[in-house]
């Protein structure tokens, strides 16, 4: 394994949502480090806090959410900054220029009233990477070419409704890449696309990552995608990271009962099985999360301590962390 040069550190992050029904403790002490140039994956089922974690990185948690505690350390070439303590205008300079997002639904992430060329140019002009609109429009063609958009000279003048789903996602990636950010946060970038386009988009991301030395934070619930794309993976459950390690470690030797269940629920083309195993129970209500380990009501190895105390993330082998009482005593 290469020596990790951290680019982003999330330390002890807590996010609560203040709803009418009560306080939803959506993120409960998440800690992880992303190394420069790697693809870091956040996996977990719907509602486990993957998206909220990614939004919290640049303080974009939607109302009524609030970041309660924690640090997000961003390593610039000139030093470290805590993004959560940065004033809004400084943060805006980082959003889209240093840390860019790719959204889940490309059809919704593009404003229907502007051409994609305009929207790419807007990002560049906003951050003053290109001073003039005219130049920005010309550069937008290059950006579209770099995301392998067919016929970029023509497409740059197209409105979102004139493009197919794959082309829209390429444009969204183009907007994200236009300022040559250091980190790209891709939030389920392929879940709205069909499988062939998924493969194309993933190939594109991998190619861009290698060419531009991007760091990608990929958020997904697709285990196949994780195995294919990622260097390191963090498995999230109900607002906690339950297991963190390299892809080989997590896939070949899953430690946490939840990860094991998750991997058993993915069909394996090499073995013939009658039916897929499901994890019993449902995701807990995060207004009243279960005490101790949040997974204990669904776990088949529950011990007494699991109901009382929350396990900490401990390193079992180099780089492989797990938060489970089975391993830490």
């Amino acid at each position, binding site marked *: 394994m290469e020596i990790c040069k951290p680019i982003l550190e999330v330390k002890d992050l807590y996010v609560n949502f203040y709803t009418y029904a009560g306080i939803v403790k959506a993120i409960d002490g998440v800690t992880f480090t992303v190394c420069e140039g790697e693809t870091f994956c956040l996996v977990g089922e719907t509602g486990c806090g993957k998206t909220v974690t990614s939004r919290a990185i*640049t303080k*974009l948690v*939607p*109302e009524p959410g609030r970041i309660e505690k924690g640090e997000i350390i961003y390593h610039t070439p000139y030093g470290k900054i805590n993004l959560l303590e940065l004033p809004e*205008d400084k943060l*805006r*300079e*980082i*959003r*889209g*220029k240093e840390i*860019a*997002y790719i*959204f*889940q*639904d490309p059809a*919704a*992430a*593009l*404003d*229907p*009233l502007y051409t994609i060329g305009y929207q790419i140019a*807007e*990002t560049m002009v*906003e*951050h003053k990477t290109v001073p003039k609109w005219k130049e920005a429009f010309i550069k937008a063609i290059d950006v579209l070419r770099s995301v392998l958009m067919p016929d970029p000279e023509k497409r740059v*003048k197209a*409105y979102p409704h*004139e493009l197919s789903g794959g082309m829209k996602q390429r444009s*969204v990636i183009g*907007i*994200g890449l236009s300022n040559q950010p250091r980190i790209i946060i891709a939030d389920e970038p392929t879940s709205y696309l069909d499988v062939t386009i998924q493969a194309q988009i993933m190939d594109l991301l991998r190619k861009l990552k290698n060419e531009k030395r991007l760091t990608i934070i990929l958020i997904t619930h697709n285990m196949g995608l994780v195995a294919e794309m990622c260097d390191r993976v963090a498995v999230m459950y109900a607002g906690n990271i339950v297991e963190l390690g390299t892809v080989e470690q997590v896939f070949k030797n899953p430690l946490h009962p939840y990860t094991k269940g998750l991997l058993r629920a993915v069909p394996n083309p090499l073995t013939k099985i009658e039916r897929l195993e499901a994890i019993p129970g449902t995701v807990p209500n995060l207004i009243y999360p279960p005490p101790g380990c949040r997974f204990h009501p669904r776990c088949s190895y529950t011990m007494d301590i699991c109901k009382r105390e929350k396990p900490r993330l401990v390193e079992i082998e180099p780089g492989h962390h797990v938060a489970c009482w089975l391993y830490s005593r």
Partner: protein
Amino acid sequence: MSAEEVYEKKLLDHLSDFFLKGIVKIIDSIRPGWSVRNKSKIDEWRLMFYALNRSPTGIVGLILVASFILIGIFGPLVAPYSYNDLLVFKNTHYRFIPPGGRGPGGEIFLLGTDDYGRDMLSLVLYGARTSLVVALLVIILGAPIGIILGLISGYYGGKIDELIMRITDIFLAFPGLILAIAFAATLPDRIRGLLETNPWLQNIMLSLFSLDPADAPRLANLLSVIIAIIIVWWPGYTRIVRGSTLSARENVYVEAAKAMGMGSWGIMIKHIFPNILAPILVILTLDVGSVILLEAGLSYLGIGAQPPIADWGRIVYDGSRWLIRGYWWLSLLPGIFILLTVLGFNLLGDALRDVLDPKARRSIEFKLKKKKR
């Protein structure tokens, strides 16, 4: 030109196509290549016209509004007499000539004359200018206030929203007409002072309303009515814009704009406002009628334009004294003009609501396509 192949066209559609082609040609001659670059936009406009052409009331409204605007612009230029030509001082026989009647000199008065021997046609033409300018000023000055406050209120939410909306509620709680009367009655002195210290403003206003410089002192009352209407009128906009903003800001592209580092103002102006423009345009069109009616109402009550300034509401009021003596045209004719103008804006607004709502328009287009098969 796929649109031409699919749609069954009527005379009006050919007319609107012709009209649109003319406009495109003009723009093209100023900025070469514009039509090629904006082909999808032009197609969209054409479809919008087709949809409007299917609505007979909308067409009637459009014709009424267009003629009102034309009369408002060119009326004072083509009027046979000035609004302050009191022919009665030349010859008392100029009084109360019925519509189509002849004066002592043999000249025809198409709409008759009033008690001062003023030509009714000229009065109506000048009155159209007054109404048009009042409506435009109210919209240009008033709508942005309401729209900006609504955008702020809807976008930021929380305490700012609460504050703006409660102020809006205070204004909405008063009956509009009474509040306008209160403002219109108290403002003129201050405005008069302002006009006296700023002659350029006075000159602009005089030429806007197409008034005689001698009537400059009467300008203050007219302007105070405009300001009074603006004051009672913006809260409606704030409400509507806030509501639309609340739903528009939930769009993913707004979040995407935030994530790419855009500021709040940029997002509001570039990504929220254009997306909620359609309902605002409809309300604006409908409200031009209401503004004209409110202004006429205030003038009728004697608060707005002072004689001899030609104002439809004022003419109706002045003529109403003579109604009982059988001189019906004095107040009825300007009354009909008020009615037609307001009706026109209402019909057009209703039609625009269907045309600008993509869902309603698609259904109209769908019907059009079906007929062909």
